């Protein structure tokens, strides 16, 4: 009997240790989430403005020739997949990677991948996808310069006709408990000018619409990527927080159950001891 109580004690101790770790991770990601959300709120005006402007401009310029705007038959697609560097974030990495892979399968065409986060890289390398770029160590705290680098890599591929479309796969941050894996198509930009405004005013473009677009399209790509990186980093922290919270709760539940069994075992041991003493005393009579 003493063996079992000791055994249960040992397990409780083990689970408590794990609980401490998950609890700490929960707190860490809560703090990080708070920071990431502040960042998200600060950055949203930027990329929303850029997106809004570019829509307006493409809507009002009509047919402007630009190497980044030509639409070709899609033979090869580029996927920029934004996942995390580390796991223990529930379904966060799995969700976004699955979505990307599903789309690649559906399209059934040549796919090139830019992996952000080591989880995305590892997954796609293991499955022999063509990885044209990898960005590790930026997913938690993305900078605008990271977005610029990813953007120029993607735009070079598009301009050299190595890829005929650019997709961005990331996790949109809806709230602390809801993050949605999303795909948006960055180029060709038919999706952006769909939202043509009923705009009668004629906007001037200095020096010329072509040159303004020359400048704005890269900006649009970079800021979309930046926006996605920021959304993804908030989502990652939120997902990890929720996962760790659940793990802590589970640990607590297990400890409660084990405590009950421990008490029961202890009780049984005591009862047995008493019985033994009583029967021993009886035998002496």
């Amino acid at each position, binding site marked *: 009997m003493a063996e079992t109580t000791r055994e249960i004690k040992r397990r409780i101790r083990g689970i408590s240790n794990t609980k401490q770790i998950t609890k700490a991770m929960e707190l860490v990601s809560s703090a990080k989430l708070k920071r990431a959300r502040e960042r998200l709120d600060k950055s949203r005006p930027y990329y929303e403005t850029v997106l809004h402007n570019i829509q307006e401009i493409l809507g009002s310029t009509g047919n402007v020739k630009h190497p980044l705007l030509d639409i070709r038959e899609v033979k090869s697609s580029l996927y920029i997949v934004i996942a995390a560097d580390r796991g223990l974030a529930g379904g966060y990495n799995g969700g976004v990677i699955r979505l990307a892979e599903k789309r690649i399968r559906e399209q059934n065409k040549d796919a090139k991948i830019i992996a952000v986060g080591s989880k995305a890289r590892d997954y796609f390398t293991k499955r022999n996808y063509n990885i044209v770029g990898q960005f590790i160590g930026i997913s938690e705290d993305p900078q605008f310069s990271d977005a610029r680098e990813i953007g120029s890599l993607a735009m070079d591929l598009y301009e050299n006709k190595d890829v005929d479309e650019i997709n961005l796969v990331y996790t949109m941050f809806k709230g602390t408990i809801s993050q949605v894996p999303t795909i948006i198509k960055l180029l060709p930009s038919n999706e952006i000018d769909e939202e043509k405004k009923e705009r009668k005013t004629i*906007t001037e473009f200095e020096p010329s619409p072509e040159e303004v677009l020359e400048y704005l399209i890269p900006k649009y790509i970079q800021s979309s990527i930046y926006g996605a990186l920021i959304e993804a980093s908030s989502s990652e922290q939120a997902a990890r927080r929720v996962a760790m919270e659940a793990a802590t709760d589970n640990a607590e539940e297990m400890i409660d159950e084990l405590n009950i069994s421990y008490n029961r075992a202890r009780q049984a041991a005591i009862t047995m001891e008493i019985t033994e003493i009583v029967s021993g005393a009886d035998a002496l009579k």
Partner: protein
Amino acid sequence: MSNFHLDIVTPDNLFFSDKVEMVIVRGIDGDLAVLKGRAPITTPLRIGKVRVFQEGKERVAAISDGYVSVQDDKVTIVTESAEWPDDIDIERAKSAKERAEKRLKDRRDNIDIHRAELALHRAINRIEVSQIKKFD
């Protein structure tokens, strides 16, 4: 003077959002003053200064590359970074300037030269703007 709304947005924050009387920016074709009722325009900007006029007072900020868009009495300046003179880290700007100058002197490969030139422009612009404050 009548007012219009000016937003200056950067990737890190909404740098400025208020009513102003006039704003002067440096477009790639030269300086551009925007007043209320300006016809819609979109143009890229150079690394330089933004001069904001509010209630007769002028404030200057350093910006690095971006564009300005004027639509219906709403002016938006989108830039990668914007700083008031007080926020500029002069030491950092000076060391960035030295670094860029050194890189331009060495001239190893071509891609770096363009970037170094931009960095140099940014650093000089920051130093200039940070000194504006000292005169008043």
